[in-house]
């Protein structure tokens, strides 16, 4: 049976937090990539995390739909953003994100879709859907996960999966 869904690598943040989680030397042997992230901000209070490809912040864009339990907003940004738990959220909880990147090794621009939420035992918690684009023709060989300011908190994890169509 074909091995079509492979865990390429996992990273877990240790004591003291980390500025980023980086996947480097991503092999070009899969059809698509999926990134599953469990993440909490160490200090920032924005519930925001980002991804960038090949160590550049250029040429990212997204259209998003986001709700917080009482209001919904939509719009566009020049980043690729998903939801993390922030320090004011329930202790020891983490935001969850599923990020899908089809045809990551091709020579066309790279589309990205993500579905992310925060966990909070209160009225307000975030959910965000993103249709993103990295307008670059290079194969993706590096993915970096950061928060907007401050560190990624201890016990945050990310696993990168490679998907093959056969």
């Amino acid at each position, binding site marked *: 049976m074909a091995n079509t869904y492979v865990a390429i*690598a*996992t990273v877990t943040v240790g004591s003291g937090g980390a500025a*980023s989680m980086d*996947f480097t030397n991503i092999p070009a042997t899969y059809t698509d990539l999926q990134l599953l992230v469990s993440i909490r901000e160490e200090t920032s209070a924005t519930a925001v995390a980002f991804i960038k490809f090949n160590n550049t912040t250029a040429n990212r864009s997204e259209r998003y739909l986001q709700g917080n339990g009482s209001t919904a907003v939509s719009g566009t940004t020049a*980043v690729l953003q998903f939801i993390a738990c922030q320090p004011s959220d329930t202790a020891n909880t983490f935001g969850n994100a599923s990020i899908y990147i089809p045809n990551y090794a091709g020579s066309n621009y790279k589309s990205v879709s993500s579905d992310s939420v925060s966990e909070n035992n209160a009225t307000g918690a975030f959910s965000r859907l993103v249709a993103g684009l990295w307008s670059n023709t290079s194969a993706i060989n590096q993915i970096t996960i950061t928060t*907007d300011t401050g*560190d990624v908190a201890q016990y945050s994890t990310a696993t*990168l999966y490679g998907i093959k169509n056969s």
Partner: protein
Amino acid sequence: MPTKLIVDCSTGVTTEVELTAEEVAQREADAVAFAEIKAAEEAAAQAKADAKASAEAKLAALGLTPEEIAALS
């Protein structure tokens, strides 16, 4: 100095590396840039909400009921 976690997908080895001065500067610049973007988004959302409230107040002054105003949106 902040550190970053790097996992090499070709080996599976994870290393913790201190950010360079350039990376720290870039990180700070990115944070400032995002704060500006977020402020602009919030200002735009507030302006839209203010315009909606203003429009609804004017419609109410013309005699429309809350139900009639809600039916327009």
